[in-house]
């Protein structure tokens, strides 16, 4: 097997499909959906683990929630929500194209969905701000 350096160059070099400037809009959506999908899939299990604190009773839950509602974790939650929004918006493009909507207007669909995603994230920033400032 060739060295890891040449492998990386083969995957991401200037002539490779994955070199950012060579990626068409749909491929950006695909890459973003994969990365955020991985993050959110792992989060599901972290979420189940945290919620299992219910089993340890009211006091343990209160203690866990005082950690989870600290500023740092609210900001992490905001980033997570951002990942969820990216995943939802890029997934919506797949659903639309699969059902025949906007098949000949990919770029327009991408831009409209990107704007919707940005608006949702601005709303999320407001929510996080209200939660942090109490």
């Amino acid at each position, binding site marked *: 097997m060739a060295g890891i350096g040449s492998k990386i160059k083969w995957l991401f070099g200037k002539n490779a499909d994955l070199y950012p400037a060579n990626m068409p809009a749909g491929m950006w959506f695909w890459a973003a959906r994969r990365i955020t999908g*991985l993050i959110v*899939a792992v989060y*599901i299990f972290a979420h189940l683990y945290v919620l299992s604190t219910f*089993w340890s009773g*009211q006091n343990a839950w209160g203690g866990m929630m005082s950690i989870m509602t600290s500023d740092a974790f609210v900001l992490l939650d905001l980033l997570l929500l951002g990942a*969820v929004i990216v995943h939802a918006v890029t997934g919506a493009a797949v*659903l639309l194209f*699969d059902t025949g909507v906007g098949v000949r207007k990919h770029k327009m669909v991408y831009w409209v969905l990107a704007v919707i995603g940005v608006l949702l994230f601005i709303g999320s920033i407001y929510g996080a701000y209200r939660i942090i400032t109490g």
Partner: protein
Amino acid sequence: MMNNPAKTKGSWGWLMQRVTAVLIIVFLGTHIYLTHFASFDLDLLDWTLVEERVRALPILIIDYGLLVTAIFHGLNGLRMIAFDFVTTNGRRKLADVGFWVLGVGSVIWGLAIFAPFF
């Protein structure tokens, strides 16, 4: 007709990924709103308020619906990524067994989480 893609199991995963995607948009949207954004004055994560929500049947149905659809969608997505790298039939079947065990186990874990409220 093993060569007909429509008659192999792959297309079920493809279809269910889309069905669960639509359901998750509804369930997750409601879940995040009710658990975090419905009020900034009340502490929505306080034990008594959580208990109140869990005991409301429509909310419980949404949360359990989200549990099943999210775990399916997440593991089916991981399966799709895994199958880009695991390409032989035998290893894929082995991976499927693993994903099903993990999925069913996680759903049981999730269903049991609200036990203290009943």
